[in-house]
């Protein structure tokens, strides 16, 4: 299949499905659900087909599409995938499918829900595949609105508050991103590489940065703007407080999407846009980034420990886990004198660890939210102090849940381990102090996860309301949980085959391009210094 047709179909098939949903009879909720599930499944199938077309040994951008959209402004409909976006595209379509399967618990306004869900999927896939900054921005905003309504309409008691908080936070980030985007757009016109044209092409912008044609000042400012925009989505301390509220209020499948995919967009944005286009800025802020990541890990873990709401706890665990992503990307050590990268392999390892952590967290946190949702659907509360003894009533479910929670804990052999440990191992090269603090996170993580397991699953009997509703999980729920567990195990046991192999060439390309870009700007800077000295 032509790349244009394939990529466009992957992005817009959910939209087509959303349009198709409008012809259904209002009463036919079951068939609408099945139809929407079929659409997400087909999208997942298409992404698998895309994986088949994808050459994992190659580091560059593949299956590129480039069609002028608004030629006057050099805005293109430009798509493509590489080793960094491909795994995230797969994760998105997988989690969307599982989220759709979990959507049977939505009983009200089903059609509207399904339509918004499918539009959301379009937005997410578009973000991961677009190579044009403007297109990226459009998809970024497209994804925002359905999410707002999904939380605000189908959410819990404080849904309006949570939805508005989510919306405003993300919008604030978008605005900063927009400023940076325009800075780079008009900055690109001064480059020799573009022939005086202003461009939105991310790859071209990366090349300009590699050639060192963005000034150090521009890079620093643009990077900080972009970083704050993406850090809100990640979320990193202190931009994280929308997350617990959004998660607590969102319905289960939306929490899965939110934790499984949306948070990854922050990381993806940093790795795809902020870092390659502003290598100097990235290096300038590297220590702050790592420190912020370390602080997020510790802070999130502590905050998780003090929660009594099950979903809030999982939400804070996400803050903690995404800290590793931030660290892994930024462990870029340079030689102060020459500007050359020290031990690039360790940095690559950190970046791969960050990427893998995103995938692993996508599986484990989606799984954790699903497991919470299964309980919530039955007993309609999430108070950790009122649980206990679930293992006695729902043994199979509890077994699967414990595996997922251990994946979140970072147990070897499950998906959370590889990302965390790779990031931590690569951090010593950057800063021993921060590495040690980051490593201490393993104790806290074990603390709150085990305590949660003890309070919810272990113990003799369930102490909360509606004990009679604790029925064993049904086939649909088992299927979702099993898929997640299988992925968690496979990714933990075969990390190289399940992702790292695909990412490594692209990450090598990225780090090399950034190193070159930094060195060029660094040399220019040192020349100025040497010239100014008599």
């Amino acid at each position: 299949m032509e790349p244009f047709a394939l990529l466009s179909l992957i992005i817009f098939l959910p939209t087509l499905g959303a349009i198709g949903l409008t012809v259904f009879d209002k009463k036919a909720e079951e068939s609408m659900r099945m139809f929407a599930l079929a659409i997400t499944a087909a999208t997942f199938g298409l992404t698998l087909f895309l994986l088949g077309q994808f050459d994992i040994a190659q580091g560059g951008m593949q299956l590129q599409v480039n069609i002028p959209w608004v030629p006057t402004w050099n805005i293109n409909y430009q798509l493509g995938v590489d080793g960094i976006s491909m795994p995230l595209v797969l994760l998105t379509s997988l989690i969307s499918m599982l989220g759709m399967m979990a959507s049977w618990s939505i009983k009200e306004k089903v059609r509207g829900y399904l339509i918004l869900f499918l539009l959301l999927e379009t937005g997410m896939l578009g973000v991961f595949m677009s190579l044009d900054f403007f297109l990226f921005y459009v998809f970024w905003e497209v994804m925002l609105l359905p999410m707002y309504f999904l939380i605000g309409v189908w959410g819990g008691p404080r849904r309006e508050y949570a939805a508005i908080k989510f919306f405003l936070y993300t919008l604030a980030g978008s605005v900063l991103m927009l400023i940076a985007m325009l800075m780079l757009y008009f900055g690109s016109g001064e480059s020799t590489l573009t022939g005086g044209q202003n461009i939105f092409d991310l790859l071209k912008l990366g090349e300009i940065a590699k050639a060192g044609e963005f000034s150090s000042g521009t890079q620093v400012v643009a990077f900080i703007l972009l970083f704050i925009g993406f850090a809100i989505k990640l979320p990193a301390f202190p931009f994280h407080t929308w997350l617990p509220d959004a998660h607590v209020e969102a319905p289960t499948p939306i929490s899965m999407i939110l934790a499984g995919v949306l948070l990854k967009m922050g990381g993806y944005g940093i790795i795809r846009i902020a870092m390659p286009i502003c290598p100097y800025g990235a290096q300038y802020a590297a220590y702050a980034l790592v420190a912020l990541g370390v602080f997020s890990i510790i802070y999130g873990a502590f905050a998780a420990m003090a929660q009594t709401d099950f979903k809030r706890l999982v939400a804070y665990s996400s803050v903690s886990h995404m800290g590793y992503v931030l660290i892994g990307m930024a462990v870029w050590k340079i030689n102060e004198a020459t500007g050359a990268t020290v031990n690039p392999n360790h940095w690559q390892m950190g970046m791969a660890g960050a990427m893998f952590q995103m995938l692993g967290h996508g599986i484990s946190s989606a799984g954790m939210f699903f497991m919470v949702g299964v309980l919530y659907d039955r007993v309609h509360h999430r108070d950790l102090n009122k649980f206990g003894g679930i293992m006695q009533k729902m043994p199979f479910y509890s077994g699967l849940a414990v595996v997922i929670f251990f994946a979140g804990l970072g147990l070897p052999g499950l998906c959370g381990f590889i990302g965390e440990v790779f990031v931590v191992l690569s951090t010593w090269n950057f800063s021993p102090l921060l590495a040690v603090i980051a490593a201490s996170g393993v104790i806290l993580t074990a603390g709150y996860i085990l305590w949660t397991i003890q309070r919810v699953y272990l113990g003799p009997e369930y102490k909360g309301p509606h004990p009679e509703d604790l029925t064993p999980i049904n086939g649909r729920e088992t299927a979702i949980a099993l898929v997640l567990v299988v992925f968690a195990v496979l990714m933990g046991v075969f990390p190289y085959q399940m992702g790292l192999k695909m990412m490594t060439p692209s990450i090598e390309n990225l780090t090399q391009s950034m190193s070159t870009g930094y060195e060029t700007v660094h040399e220019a800077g040192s020349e100025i210094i040497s010239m100014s000295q008599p």
Partner: protein
Amino acid sequence: MSPDIYIETGTTLKWLLTTAWLLPLAGFLIEVFGGYWSGRKSRAAAYLAVGCIATGFVCSLIALLTWIDAANLNVSDIWQNPGAVAAASHEVSEATHADHEHDAHHAGAEHDGDHEHVAPSHSEAEHHGHAVHGNNPLKFAFNGTFYTLAKFGSIQVTLDYYIDGLTVLMFTMVTFIATCIHLFAIGYMSDELTESYEDHQVHLPGGKHFHRPGRFYRFFSFLSLFCFAMLGLVLAGNIFQVFIFWELVGVCSYLLIGFYVERKSASTAANKAFIMNRVGDFGFLIGLMILWTWFGTFQFANTNPDQTGQQGLFQMVRTDTGEIETEGEGLNRVAYMQSLSGQRLMGNDGQARRIPYWLLVVAGLGIFAGCVGKSAQFPLQTWLPDAMEGPTPVSALVHSATMVAAGVYLAGRFFPMFTPEVLLVIAYVGAITAFIGATIALVVTDIKQVLAYSTISQLGYMMLAIGVGGWLAGLFHLITHAFFKSLMFLCSGSVIHGCHHEQEMTKMGGLYKKMPITCWTMWIGVVAISGLAIPITLPYLGAIAFSGFHSKDAIIASSLSFSTLNPTHSLLFFIPLITAGITAFYMHRMWFMTFFGKPKDHHVHEHAHESPWVMCGPLLALSFFAAFCAVGGESGPLAKLLLTSEPTHVAGGLQAAGNIGLNLPSHHDIHECHGQAGVMALLAALMGAVIAYLFYCKQAVDPALVKARFESAHRFLKSKWQFDEIYDAMFTRPVHVVAKWCTGFDREALDRFLHSCASLAVGIAQWDRKFDEAVVDRIVNVLGEVTFAAGRTLKGVQTGRLRQYVMFIAAAVVCLFVVLFLFLPR
């Protein structure tokens, strides 16, 4: 010589051990899923688990035989050049001979100086052999890679295997003990074979006992998973892989301690075990980070005789003579890395690669911190006694014989990486742990708790031995301890089973008639751990003693020779010596209190019964090994097998090149003081045993009186040296407080800031509305109003009276004229 033999033997060993390793995993998967969907009364899971682990044992046994065959006959010449073979084999036989005689003599409390010339030749020959074949501080080992976990440029993370004598021996030991314990558990856990198991320890609010379906299958599936993880740990070929399986055995231990999930105490103990292990693993991780950053590899060593590929950690850190090549002083001191060919390793930039010496120390301490956690060493020992909440077979397998010994195993395996500073720390930690564990064991009355504290104490012994350079003694004791401690745990399990889950020794007594097999097998264990022996030697067999005597003797001898060489550290000899006496006392106390004297609780005594054969059989098998596995002492087959994997510099004995002047004893030094140490240890043990006999069997002294006399000391020991309270106050509570702070910060600072931003925005909006209303609108309105008012006022002028209009016109014209005349320029 030829790599063909190396590859052939290595491949055989690899496949045998891999089979033994992976079978329990397959067993686990079948058991856990099959068991869930099958009946609760089926024993199939147990048979499958036993089948898997027994097959694993057979494989390991074949591997052991292959190893012995290779190490003695064919393979020894792979690693040595043909010329050295004859000398080496000669040297080995001579050394063996000498060892025999040493053993015989020191058992007889004598020492003859005329063997001195033999031992140096031993180490000399070894060094010679190594000098010939480059930098390979390990005698025989096979290593290779299973598959890659990740690859970044020149560095990669892999799953490897590393097989030497220690690996094979550990495999055999673990699989054998595990098989025995699996069999025992079939009997012990048989009351789980029911649809409705009544748990007497869980009280529901209604005053009823808790009922649940039996979980027989689950127990065996967890045991299988544990076996898989433990064997993986032993087979691991790099330190990262060790870490992986380290965590996996930790989680298996968590699952097994918390097997009775409905008991709060059990789940809390499980959490405690896991989290305290994680504290150790935090240190482990720091060690890994340093190694990874500076060495760029995790591999232990590359032992391929072709000397192709990358060198491993052991080869990088030490030269062929076992030295760490350093330069500089204090914090500026650096250690140079070595290459396979025996030269300094060059980096990509053409400089010799080196690592700050203090980082090497920190890395060693970090890895050792992991061992501290796993082996329940001071200061992380408190989880192990709590772990006794698990079923007794678990205590026997996981918390005495295998998993907790993994820390010692790793300390032994990673020995070449430890600098003298680290070794000294290891020695002191071991000594302190041995003492603390033994003292607490004096006062506890729960039969499993006594064994738990004794385990802590014995693990301390092993660490001490490794720390003072007695590598062989430490690992020797690891193996013998595994046998006699798992034996004793199973005996205690048999007692508990026979007394219907009564664990308090104060309610037992006089059980020897009811449970003769248990009683006498346990006696073997007690004697073995106490280190009692008959001071007569037999030709070729050494002293008449059970396994524990030989190994403990070796440890005491190592520490004595160490403290002789380093007089400032003589405490490292006296603590283990005293502890040896205490050990004998409390073990006999336990034995006498349980099996002898008058029955203290008639209800318990009347219902007590000997266990079925499925439980007694393993007892007998284990007691055989507990008694005889170390036959021949340090010149026996077990020790010789271990010696094949001993890192070279240990055997050599050296003026260790650290920042602190330390001398590590050589084999020769240890032999020299063997006799002296043996006598002292034996006397201490005898004293302990006799006192225990007087206290608890003859009742010559009333223990209650002693207790009253040393009231405060007793209370201090009863409260386990206050560790739990201190940790609770120092860590647990502060963590919760900080956690509260964090959420408070989120709510009070971040969210409040956001909310005030929002309020500010709303305030501005309201002000903006007021401005609009009060200013902008007002101006427009006023303008209109003024116009309107002006019109209304002027309305009066228009009277409609024509005459007036005319008047106005006229007046206006006149005015116009006047104005024109006045102002217009003429």
